């Protein structure tokens, strides 16, 4: 168990900089999720921590030890790979015991640890099987078992759920979360799925082009996104964005001239900036009973999800979505009056995307 500290880390491939000057502190026992779109550098960062990629410049500490030049084999880190990377010629038992055997752990202890991990992951019946005789979900568990038996300083997960079907993904996600609470070890989990990030993390690192956009708790990242990128990336369906201006002491959508009610904080921000980008999450629209109280929209598409209904509409030239009560089933072409919750609106600088408050 150990903290992970990344200081002024840069990673270049030739002349191409993947990660420019990154700083990150992961506390001992913390479950941190790296999230971001493809090519944002999240897997590269994880592989750097694992020792599978060299650092171009900067420092990496695991615990108090600087590990820049330390081989992966000597870092005492366990990693679960996206494709599981099981040893195909070894039985499940041998896959799990291999690392302990390399460290010269006594046979009896290896046996006890493998069996304990197998019980934890419900894979005891498969210990004598080869990986090719297992399903995708079972292989995934073996890959986790291989990591767990080692009792390492930190666990690294590289998109381990992306090859599972939706149902299994939800189940394993909950299991990993439960495991993290039981094992109390530092965990770093890479995903492009923001639901995984929100549900599992103590803290989320949102990455774009190798730079940290925000590093905070899931609640903070959702409620108080640091910029337009984070606001648009976290939350599903994504936040709606509209160009907005401050005219005659009111917030008015730049296109169409619709007046939008804002909370005090965002109104002050817009007053100072003059114009900005307004962000409203789909779930922060309500259907107004009084037509004059909301923004009139034409329903373009209705998606009933069971738990709620998604209404697609165009507003101020932007394709937008509102998440409303499932009992509401308007028809395409119907006119609805939607009212954003003023206190939950967000405002971003139109030039650099930074949040305005």
């Amino acid at each position: 168990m150990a903290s992970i500290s990344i200081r002024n880390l840069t990673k270049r491939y030739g002349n191409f900089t993947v990660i420019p000057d990154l700083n990150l502190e992961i506390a001992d026992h913390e479950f941190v999720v790296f999230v971001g779109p493809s090519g944002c550098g999240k897997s590269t960062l994880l592989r750097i921590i694992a020792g599978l990629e060299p650092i171009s410049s900067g420092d990496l500490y695991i615990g108090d030890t600087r590990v820049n030049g330390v081989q992966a084999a000597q870092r005492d880190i366990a990693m679960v790979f996206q494709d599981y990377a099981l040893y195909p010629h070894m039985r499940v038992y041998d896959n799990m015991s291999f690392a302990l055997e390399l460290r010269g752990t006594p046979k009896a202890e290896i046996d006890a640890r493998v069996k304990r991990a197998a019980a934890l992951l419900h894979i005891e019946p498969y210990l004598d099987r080869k990986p090719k005789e297992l399903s995708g979900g079972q292989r995934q568990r073996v890959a986790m078992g291989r990591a767990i038996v080692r009792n390492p300083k930190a666990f690294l997960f590289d998109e381990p759920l992306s090859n599972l079907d939706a149902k299994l993904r939800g189940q394993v996600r909950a299991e990993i979360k439960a495991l993290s609470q039981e094992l109390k070890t530092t965990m770093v989990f890479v995903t492009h799925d923001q639901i995984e990030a929100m549900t599992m993390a103590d803290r989320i690192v949102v990455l774009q082009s190798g730079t940290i956009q925000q590093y905070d708790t899931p609640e903070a990242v959702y409620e108080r996104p640091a910029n337009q990128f984070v606001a648009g990336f976290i939350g599903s369906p994504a936040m709606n964005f509209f160009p907005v201006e401050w005219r005659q002491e009111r917030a008015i959508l730049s296109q169409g001239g619709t007046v939008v009610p804002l909370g005090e904080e965002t109104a002050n921000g817009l007053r100072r900036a003059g114009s900005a980008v307004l962000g409203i999450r789909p779930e922060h629209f309500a259907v107004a009973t009084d037509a004059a109280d909301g923004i009139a929209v034409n329903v373009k598409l209705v998606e009933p999800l069971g738990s709620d209904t998604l209404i697609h509409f165009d507003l101020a030239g932007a394709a937008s979505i509102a998440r409303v009560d499932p009992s509401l089933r308007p028809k395409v072409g119907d006119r609805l009056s939607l009212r954003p919750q003023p206190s939950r609106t967000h405002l971003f600088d139109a030039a650099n995307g930074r949040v305005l408050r």
Partner: protein
Amino acid sequence: MTDAVNTDRWIRWLNLVQLVLAGVIIMTPTVWMVLSSFKPSFEVTAYPPTLIFTPTLDNYVELTKTTPFLSYALNSLIVTVGSTALGLLFGIPAAFAVSWTRISWPAILTLAARMAPGTLFLLPWYVMFRQVGMIGSYTALILSHAVITLPIVIWVLLPSFDAIPRSVFEAAQVDGCSVTRILWRIALPLVASGIAVSAILAFVFSWNYFLFALVLSNGDTKTLIAAAFNFIGEGSTQWGALMAAATLIALPPLVLAALVQRWLVSGLTLGAVKG
């Protein structure tokens, strides 16, 4: 619909014709050689060739009586096994290193060496081996035949190592393996079938290689294929004995080639990754 059926039928026929033609071209000399080895001497060169004859083992008897055939066979075996072992000893780590580092020029260099005519090596080798008094030694023959076996081992194994998912090696690194241990514990078991295939191919090519043994061997270390050359005399050629010798020389490679087929089908990496 009818057109499609007709086209399919034509393709099947053409495939069959191709296979038969290829079979005839490849098999005719072999069949002719084997049949001739069982013909009485005077019938071997008869024209037109006789297809119906009384088979005899005379050529084989003559071969063993007039030549130290077993001794030549033993020489061939020593040189072939030695050079195959040498090829595997250096070729396996070399192929792994090329696959691991993705630096391919050393492998291309060995391929260039394999493609170069044997005479290119022969002259400097002859001078070098003579200077150190190794002409006619097994060591000289084994070392020279490694030029045949090493590229075969490297190039047969390279795709096998490349086919192992990189993440399997990385998992082993994270588990605590050094590169040497990854080769030994992870990669080698996974390319076992490739090693068998490369060993058999190296054996066959070394066994059949003629030029180096012709120049670098002596009476005691002459290999079968070089010795068989002696049957072609200036005055007369013992065609019957030559055919018997050729048949016996061809036997081990043919048996081994049949074995290769069995190894090729096994896919050990199945189940390494998702799926």
